[in-house]
């Protein structure tokens, strides 16, 4: 094949001990009776006017070195000589509510459009907080984030710039902290990288701490908002109870009657007693009327007693109903207040129960950040993944080189 012509200054002769190919291209002659030229066959051909085959092969090698090996070598030197080690500390936690075990909805449930499970959403809120500028500011106060990212151990390319604005710090922080929520188990995995093992561990610990603090704030707010309404209705009920109580006492005082119900019952009993007395007296009088003369003193006395008892009964009945001071109207007022009092008491009971259930529900909805794996103290630098990067670069370049070679050969065929 023909080499890609190079400027004489670009000759890389330290890699391959070979006389540099002449900068002008070997003339690729097209032979009309052989049909189209095939690179593969042409490769073995010794072209008239061209250099010897081994020479051409070396030229091919030189191109390979130039486009694949040299960049790979440069990347390798950069990775192993310049880029600093980074240590990763990992911690796992799960966000749970007291009410449930925290198992997430299955993928099938999501497929059928069922509600996503609440704890997954809660984990997501915590994750969102951990990657926010808010968390960065808090970490800056607690563990000194900027200083951590500007350690002297870090190389110039991967350290945070001096006087970086907050936005840059946030972006940098997000590259160093990797938070992912496991979709099915709801376990959140936090991986923190730092230029020192201790840094990574401290940062991971600090992240857990601020996460816990944020969760507790959520809980406090939830409890307050839940209980506020219930407390209000309880206070209203209490006020109602004390109002009716006061009204009742007022009534008792104004009627000079400690217990209108008992009083009225006693009065009614008295009236019935009197009525039975009256009936007896009348019966006796009637019996006398048959035995003695009406003007006999016995009869007169008995008749007088009957009249007296009749008067008594009349007075007593009048006191039960008749006038404003009578027992019936007093009892009516009293019973109205008594009914209101019972209502207020029931409302009070209901409000107390509602407050209890609200508190219970809030407690059941409380989130807990449960640590599953404590942050480890890294001993070996896991980052940067040098071999992986170098391998990736090498194979990508090799593929690209091969493809480019084939495509260029195709292009050259057109100019035959």
């Amino acid at each position, binding site marked *: 094949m023909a080499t890609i012509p190079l400027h004489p200054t670009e000759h890389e002769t330290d890699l391959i001990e070979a006389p540099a190919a002449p900068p002008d291209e070997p003339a690729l002659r097209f032979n009309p009776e052989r049909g189209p030229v095939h690179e593969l066959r042409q490769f073995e051909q010794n072209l008239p006017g061209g250099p010897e085959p081994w020479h051409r092969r070396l030229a091919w090698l030189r191109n390979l070195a130039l486009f694949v090996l040299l960049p790979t070598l440069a990347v390798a030197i950069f990775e192993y000589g310049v880029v600093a080690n980074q240590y990763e500390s990992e911690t796992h936690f799960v966000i749970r509510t007291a009410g449930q075990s925290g198992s997430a909805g299955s*993928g099938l449930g*999501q*497929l059928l459009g069922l509600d996503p499970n609440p704890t997954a959403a809660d984990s997501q809120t915590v994750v969102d907080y951990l990657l926010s500028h808010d968390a960065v500011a808090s970490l800056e106060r607690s563990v000194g984030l900027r200083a951590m990212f500007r350690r002297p151990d870090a190389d110039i390319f991967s350290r945070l710039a001096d006087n970086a604005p907050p936005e840059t710090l946030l972006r940098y922080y997000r590259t160093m902290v990797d938070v992912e929520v496991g979709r099915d188990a709801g376990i959140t995995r936090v991986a923190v990288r730092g230029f020192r093992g201790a840094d990574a561990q401290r940062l991971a610990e600090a992240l857990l701490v601020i996460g816990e603090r944020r969760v507790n704030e959520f809980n406090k707010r939830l409890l307050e908002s839940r209980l506020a309404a219930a407390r209000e209705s309880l206070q209203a009920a209490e006020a109602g109870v004390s109002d009716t109580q006061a009204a009742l006492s007022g009534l008792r005082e104004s009627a000079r009657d400690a217990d209108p119900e008992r009083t009225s019952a006693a009065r009614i009993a008295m009236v019935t007693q009197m009525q039975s007395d009256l009936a007896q007296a009348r019966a006796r009088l009637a019996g006398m009327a048959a035995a003695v003369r009406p003007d006999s003193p016995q009869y007169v006395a008995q008749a007088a007693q009957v009249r007296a008892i009749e008067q008594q009964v009349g007075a007593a009945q009048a006191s039960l109903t008749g006038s404003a001071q009578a027992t019936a109207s007093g009892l009516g007022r009293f019973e109205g207040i008594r009914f209101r009092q019972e209502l207020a008491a029931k409302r009070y009971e209901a409000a107390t129960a509602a407050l209890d259930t609200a508190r219970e529900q809030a407690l059941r909805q409380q989130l807990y950040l449960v640590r599953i794996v404590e942050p480890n103290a890294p001993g070996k630098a896991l980052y940067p993944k040098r071999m992986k990067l170098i391998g990736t670069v090498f194979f990508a370049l090799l*593929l690209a080189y091969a*493809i480019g070679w084939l*495509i260029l050969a*195709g292009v050259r065929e*057109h*100019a035959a």
Partner: protein
Amino acid sequence: MARYFRGLEVQGAVLGALILRELHTRYGRENIGYAWLLVEPMLLAISVAALHGAEKPHGGSDLYPVPFALGGYCMFMLFRSVISRAETALESNKPLLFHRMVTIFDMLAARMLLEVASTLLALIVLLSLSWALGFGGVPASPLTMLAGFGYMAWFSFALAMPVCAASYFSKAFGKFVHPLVYIAMPISGTFFLLEWIPEPYRGMLSWFPLNQIFELFHAGQFASVRSPYFDLTYLSFWCLALSLLGLISIRIVRKHVHLS
């Protein structure tokens, strides 16, 4: 170097001529002519979108079914047509190989470019229509979406070359191409996001480059789609490796094509 420029010039001319020839043989001058280029994919995509038009947005807030179906189907159509046209490319264009400057690569590239252009046009027109009719369809990040489209074009072309070679060598393989492409449609993520798939299958599917390309495309199309399931390095390696395989395979085929 001058030789390469000349070669490029000639190749550009050849590609242009091949595209024109392709247009002419495929659509001709009767009825609406070249407009079929746009109308053909549109008719297919509209019929698919009509099936999904009645659904409500599921998942994210802006995940409207019509643009979802349109985007997915247009992308898949690109894949399908590039592959199936590659299978017949040699059959219909074999005489052209008499000309020294026409290569198999040119034929495949011309067909691919034609498909890419027509599908992209159809996609743009259809999404605009969908948006105008109130079904939603403004892409959240057009560049990401185009990146997905570009990967699909590259992947299809890279796969088309070995398919073209294999179907030249064995007629049986050519018969299998169509069913295989049809099987690829339900599993390729044309009409779903990997998020919706339950776990054991999701992990398996996320290794398929087609699924990853669709994830990339949908992530560009809808703001509410945040997909962790595509990896550009992985995709690029797939495409690079397939391209190399394809270029070598059409080179081998060229040696075996005898013009009588």
